[in-house]
């Protein structure tokens, strides 16, 4: 079975991650910043899925081990990452709503109450 090499998935997720990093650094709208964080989390999820699929479970001759036929740890980590992302979005958007209620503007340059 000829398939896509692992490096392609890893490279794609690295590119997506770096696009997310740029977005977090240059955007001023906190909602778009959250979206870029989601983008980075998705890139990491893709890495998890790729490594989970391509994980070397065989013995020396390349035969899959019968006891290790259901190794899905990477995919379970994806589910945990999704749960953390959902929690983060819920709390973050709640914070945004409450900031907007108190200060009308939510430009991140103007939210500097905690600046020392």
């Amino acid at each position, binding site marked *: 079975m000829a398939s896509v090499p692992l490096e392609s998935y890893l490279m794609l997720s690295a590119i997506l991650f770096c696009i997310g990093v*740029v977005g977090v650094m*240059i955007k001023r709208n906190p909602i778009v910043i959250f979206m870029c964080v989601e983008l980075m989390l998705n890139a990491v999820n893709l890495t998890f899925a790729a490594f989970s699929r391509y994980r*070397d479970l065989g013995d020396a001759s390349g035969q899959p081990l019968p006891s290790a*036929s259901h190794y*899905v740890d990477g*995919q379970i980590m994806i589910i945990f990452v999704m749960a953390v992302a959902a929690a983060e979005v819920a709390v973050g958007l709640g914070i945004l709503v409450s900031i907007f209620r108190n200060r009308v503007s939510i430009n991140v340059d103007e939210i500097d109450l905690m600046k020392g």
Partner: protein
Amino acid sequence: MNGQLILFALMATIAVVCALGVVILDNPVRSALCLVLVLFSVAVLFFTLHAVFVGAVQIIVYAGAIMVLFIFVIMLLNLGTGEVDKDRLALPKWAAYLGAAATLSVISAALVGVPQSYIHPRLADHLTGPDTIGMELFQANWLFPFEVISILLLVAAIGAVMLAKKRI
């Protein structure tokens, strides 16, 4: 070129172009729609990696629930008008691009060290459905982390309600 490579190239192109759209477009609603496309293409990539359940959860939870939350907050706060003052950046933009390029080059350099035995999949061609995930999650080593993450979700839900309430 076989079918898998064509599908991967198509989905990777959609994902990268739409991810650039998330960053480049000024209107938050357009960014959100681009992000939906990214999430869908990543879900298709999950399917190509035989992670069927995770791909379905990606579509339902991410592209469904979380994006609805984003759009809802954009509409609620009336943010769909684009950014007004972009000249107040504390950091010059080229520094962000430079940092991201440095990160990408470091990751690419790390990819050289991936062992060659990982390049081709050796797993049997079975799809990972909900049954496999459920057995692993509830019977094997992942039960305690699962409980912890459920408590985290509960705390986050309560915290979001407390934050969004008018008067605490």
